[in-house]
């Protein structure tokens, strides 16, 4: 499976300026915010991020990232693990992970 800069996440791409990725540091240990759950739905055969009054599908890379946001792994470790699974360039994975995490922090779905 290939993880590319474009279209690899179906989880809301914000179009947020790249600078905001800067809030996510390699040493952060991200975890889902209170009231947020990652859950597999049998009926739709899909992963969902469930949160107060909202939900979104988290498939492929997004699910692989979020399922590692357990408050124990660091961002660097998460990127490392994804680099084992996906054949994309590590720098690309790193940027993608930070972009997704920064976006979810902004939406208060994730804590660093």
């Amino acid at each position, binding site marked *: 499976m290939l993880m590319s800069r474009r279209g690899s996440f179906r989880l809301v791409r914000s179009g947020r300026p790249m600078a905001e990725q800067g809030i996510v540091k390699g040493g952060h240990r991200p975890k889902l915010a209170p009231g947020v759950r990652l859950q597999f739905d049998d009926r739709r055969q899909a992963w969902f991020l469930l949160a107060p*009054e909202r939900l979104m599908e988290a498939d492929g890379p997004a699910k692989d990232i979020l399922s590692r946001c357990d408050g124990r792994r660091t961002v660097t470790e998460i990127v490392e693990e994804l680099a084992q699974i996906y054949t994309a360039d590590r720098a690309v994975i790193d940027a993608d992970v930070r972009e997704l995490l920064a976006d979810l922090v902004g939406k208060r779905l994730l804590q660093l």
Partner: protein
Amino acid sequence: MTAPPPPLGMLAELTHRCPLACPYCSNPVALENRAGELGTGEWRRVFAQAAELGVLQVHLSGGEPLARRDVVEITAAAHQAGLYTNLITSAIGLDPERLAGLRAARLDHVQISIQDTDPGSADRIAGYRGAHERKMAAARAVADAGLALTINAVVHRANIERVEAMVEIAFALGAGRVEIAHAQYYGWALRNRDALMPTRPQVDRALQAVARLRQAYQGRMVIDAVVPDYYARFPKPCMGGWGRRSLNVTPSGRVLPCHAAETIPLEFWSVRNHALEEIWLHSPAFQAFRGEDWMQEPCRSCPRRGIDFGGCRCQAMAILHDPAATDPACSLSPHHAEMLELAELASESGVAEYEYRGRMKAVPRPAPSVVS
């Protein structure tokens, strides 16, 4: 018509009983009584069927859900069915023991209403002395317990000038999310429209305040808004489309496409007689306004029909007495000007007294009859 996709959310109205009497309550004017309420076991069955049908989130609501002695058991049942659980409460009755029970039942999220930031005004709106104080304490306890908290504030003429203060209070209480919900005129709110409707300039100021506050709280607290549709240009996409995303179960088990749907004369089925999936797919009420076949002009040929689904059926019913008409909140409706006029007249009516939900209206006593 092809089978509709499974619903994502379910509103479970556990009871219509409530210690508060808010004049904007969306419950029907004819409240259901305690004797007819579904039992714990019946709710357990409904949750299992809902999860199987594809529902992901359940909103435990009312009335006041804490008025049910078995609310912890009900919450646990919903969680065990695999549902994300959201408790929508006034917080009256949320004592430490209850809160601990709900946490142990793995409740995911709590939504607490506030009526205003000024305690006197808040208690007057709620029709319950001391409500505001108790809500503040309960909201703090929820946040301290590490539970996700939303503060919900219904906005109307008596409190609309304090939108900013309501958002500040929500943040100070530890909420991760605040809802600024302009009153929606169904049920008791429709009865109280003259006393609730804000003026146009008030609404404009409130909308600007919310836009400003969203910037200010970016990344710290989510601010969601329910728009004031009497002054809108386009209608709200009510329920994300009729029978398309969610369903509502009343205290006695009737299943509705939205909480106000009983204002429309339709055939509603009950979980006491039918499985939830059967109701979702085949009951007359859910079929009535699904898809686009029921639409009239200007909706039928409107490029926005897939965006706002003709607006709200219950509003078309309430204002125009035709549930298939274009929501008059839409500027393309031939009746839009009438709706705007209703709003303006109501906002300038000067009516300050509420008809409190579920309480008898004060009627002057007739003079004692004279026995001749």
